[in-house]
């Protein structure tokens, strides 16, 4: 629901009209993006640093091997990959709040197709 109402025919505002639901969706998308970036960066930096230390001192048993922290970078990639589905789901919620049922159905159809694609691809 638009938060800033304007009388018919009034000058168009230069600031965007934002709904609370869209602002929340934007926050969730940005949080997911930041989490993915932090995980991918951390995974890669730790792997690179541990690799260097291992090269200098192969006997150092307390230094994690790159393979052992690969999950960190993989987790970051997985969080990133999940974000489009989250966006579609978030938009479905936005349209439910806006009572725009046609596009709620469209979002559900896209989510269903994505689910089928993931299921087929994983076989």
């Amino acid at each position, binding site marked *: 629901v638009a938060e800033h109402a304007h009388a018919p025919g009034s000058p168009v505002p230069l600031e965007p009209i934002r709904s609370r639901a869209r602002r929340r969706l934007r926050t969730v998308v940005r949080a997911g993006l930041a989490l993915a970036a932090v995980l991918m960066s951390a995974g890669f930096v730790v792997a690179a640093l541990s690799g260097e230390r291992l090269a200098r001192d192969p006997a150092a048993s307390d230094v994690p091997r790159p393979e052992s922290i690969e999950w960190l970078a993989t987790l970051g990639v997985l969080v990133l990959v999940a*974000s489009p589905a989250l966006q579609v789901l978030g938009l479905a919620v936005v349209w439910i709040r806006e009572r725009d049922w046609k596009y709620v159905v469209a979002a559900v*159809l896209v989510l269903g197709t994505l689910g089928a*694609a993931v299921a087929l691809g994983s076989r």
Partner: protein
Amino acid sequence: MIELAVILLIAGLMEGSLGSLVGVGPGIFVVPFLVLVLAVDIRVAVATSLIAVIATSTAAMSAHLDTGLINTRLGMALEIPTTLGAVAGGLVASLLPPAVVAGAFGVVAAATAVLVGCNAEPATERPRSGHADSIHCWEENGRLAGAYFDTRTGSFGHYEVVRVAFGSGVSLVAGVTSGVLGVGGGLLKVPAMTLGMAIPIKVAAATSNFMIGVTALASIAVYFAKGDVDPFLAAPVALGVLTGTLYGSALGLRLSGAALHWILACALAFAAVEMLLKAAG
């Protein structure tokens, strides 16, 4: 390891900036770079490219969700035929000779490049005034229409989408091409939206950036299942693309529609050459 990461990060930065400017995604640049320059296996390169596409899409969504440039209703409407096409393309990929599909795509991309270049200053780019009371969060509720604020011209633009059936048909073809070749979504849809559906190029590019991530998600599962995703390759590329997309999205707001049309025409020509070379073996 660090040197390779820096190279991938810088490459991702440039590819993300270019791809996000006109909504075609970084795929057309990532795959040739990884295969030809770094001698990466083609399947690993395509998987990395799909992750880069998702990074572009998510960053663009984050940047543009409340600027009015992404028409999420239009994106969702066109995403139905696109994802169906992508799934169908993935299923028939083994039946269709990739060289034939690449050749057909190359010819279409070349023709579209000429068409986009010849229509570099479409009438739809000139914004006209709209009425705030008819606009709901920069999209009209229940309709494929909307408005956006053009920061370059300092004016408010209103547009109405036409020929939705045509756009859906092109989206289906784009989905099939994406499922078979791993590229094609934005390259076909952005020209279709600007030339065929009367959508301003800035809105078309931003909406396409939103859509390409969803389409890429439909294709990525098979690469994960077969172990083709290399996180130490994908992570630096994705991080570079994320940063590049944020820059490209901001730059796109400042460029004129005509400049964006020419950049799109060049990207199409690049993809056409790439696909025709692939078809020629």
